[in-house]
């Protein structure tokens, strides 16, 4: 067990789509380091939980979010009920989506987008930061000679790494990843899994995955969700070696899900 402080404390979080309750008063602490994996069968609310942290639910009128998500910064900001603008919340938290979704712009402009939107950097500073992020995302060697090429010309795995670089560029405190490898082949998946572990040394990562193997391979902590509740949450080793809950055990053994 690690003793690091939580960077995020999720308290009594409920999410409703129209009148359907998707998350049921969830309590969860995301630790300040490493990868926290959210796993569970489809429809259990893992993505919903992730999107609540980034307040993406704000975009849609028929969704209701209750509870609080406390960020462990100087002000102990409650991300859901803060008087700070939602753009600030999102600038603290990066997000990588399931399907690679680069903007139909150049590779450079994709990575620079978050910087341009959030910060007032000089061209040189932007260039440096873009290079840094592309190196961090392990993409620099493949694209350094064609930064002006359209992002769509990259392969799926490269596009996903580009999206990771894009999310990292504004230096978020937390990086959310919503099944980032589910649309990729095994080789690209492997590259991205390595990358996630590398990133997690600097930025805490919350990873949604439906693959237990992936959770086991790269995560430090696991939260197992089932039908909108957190069943079990502990270090990965503990959950996989000696799960406390019967439900977790049968999921890990593959009896359902």
């Amino acid at each position, binding site marked *: 067990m690690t003793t690091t402080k939580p960077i995020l404390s999720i308290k009594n979080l409920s999410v409703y789509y129209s009148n359907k309750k998707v998350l049921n008063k969830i309590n969860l602490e995301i630790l300040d380091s490493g990868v926290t994996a959210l796993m569970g069968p489809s429809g259990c609310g893992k993505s919903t939980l992730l999107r609540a942290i980034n307040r*993406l639910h704000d975009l849609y009128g028929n969704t209701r979010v209750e509870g609080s998500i406390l960020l462990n910064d100087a002000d102990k900001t409650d991300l859901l009920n803060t008087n700070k603008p939602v753009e600030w919340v999102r600038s603290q938290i990066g997000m990588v989506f399931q399907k690679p*979704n680069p903007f*139909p712009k150049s590779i450079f402009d994709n990575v620079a987008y*978050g910087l341009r*939107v959030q910060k007032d950097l000089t061209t040189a500073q932007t260039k440096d930061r873009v290079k840094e992020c592309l190196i961090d995302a392990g993409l620099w060697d493949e694209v350094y000679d064609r930064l002006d090429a359209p992002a769509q010309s990259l392969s799926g795995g490269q596009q996903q790494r580009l999206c990771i670089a894009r999310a990292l560029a504004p230096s978020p405190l937390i990086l959310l990843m919503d099944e980032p490898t589910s649309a990729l082949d095994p080789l690209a998946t492997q590259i991205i899994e390595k990358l996630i572990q590398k990133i997690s040394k600097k930025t805490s990562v919350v990873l949604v995955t439906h693959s237990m193997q992936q959770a086991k391979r790269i995560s430090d902590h696991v939260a197992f969700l089932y039908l909108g509740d957190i069943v079990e949450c502990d270090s990965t080793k503990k959950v996989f070696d000696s799960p406390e809950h019967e439900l977790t055990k049968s999921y890990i053994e593959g009896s359902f899900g």
Partner: protein
Amino acid sequence: MKNQRMDLSVLSPKQRNQKIFARIFVSLATAVLIISLGVICVLLIRLFIDGVERLNLDFFINFPSRFPEKAGILSAWVGSFAVVLLCLMFSIPLGIACAIYLEEFAKKRFYSPFIEVCIGNLAGVPSITFGLLALGLFVYQFNLGSSILTAGLTLSLLVLPVIIMSTREALRTVPLGLKEAAYSLGATKLQVLRHHLIPQSQSGIFTGVILSLSRAIGETAPLITIGALTFIAFLPEAPVTGDFPFLNFNWVWDSFTVLPIQLYNWTSRPQAEFHKNAAAASFILVSLSLFLNSFAIVLRHRHNRKNI
């Protein structure tokens, strides 16, 4: 192998029927396509043959006249141009702004579907109704007279729903993933709109504008209602002058005629010679609208290709 007849006997009777049905359907569809294309070709060719005598430069630079061979469409095309220009000046900003508001900013409330139905309905209202509204509102209430300005406003009412609907349609084609990605990077609503939504949907928006333009050019009834002249032998005041500030907007108060009205005027004359003028003017009008529509299709095609 390629030229061999397909062996349908390996299929189950049900599959065979489906296959045969599909073939019949395709040939029917092709026939319908050929018929509708044929109609437009025959129309264009016929108009050309009837009007070829008049299709020369003089036709474009002459005013209408008592003598058919001297009569031209100068005042008509200048009028059409001015009216459509004003119409687009009003309807494009208003229509696009309205669509953006409805699609991105308006909260979904219980009456939102009602607004949608209303806009859809407006697009289907007979144009003469807009003419009557304009006659009451612009001509009598606001005292704008039977001017180019009134005509522009009337036509912009007419095409506004078309522009709103096509813009909303274009905005909806922007993938949700792109919007969410931009929002997740901390972009504000306006930034998402400026950086992603509008650039991504601009050809779609443009297509809608062109389609409504070609509708506006052909519109007659509402303009006759508001009192467009049918025979006019002078041009509106020039928009550019020799004195400061070199621009002159008095032309919007001038009376006018448009191509379809001129055309109608010529067809309703008893002398057969005038019918040649009518055919020539029709040919120009139909070609113009064909050109505009194909331009819109090219744009849409380019837009689709870019998005893949």
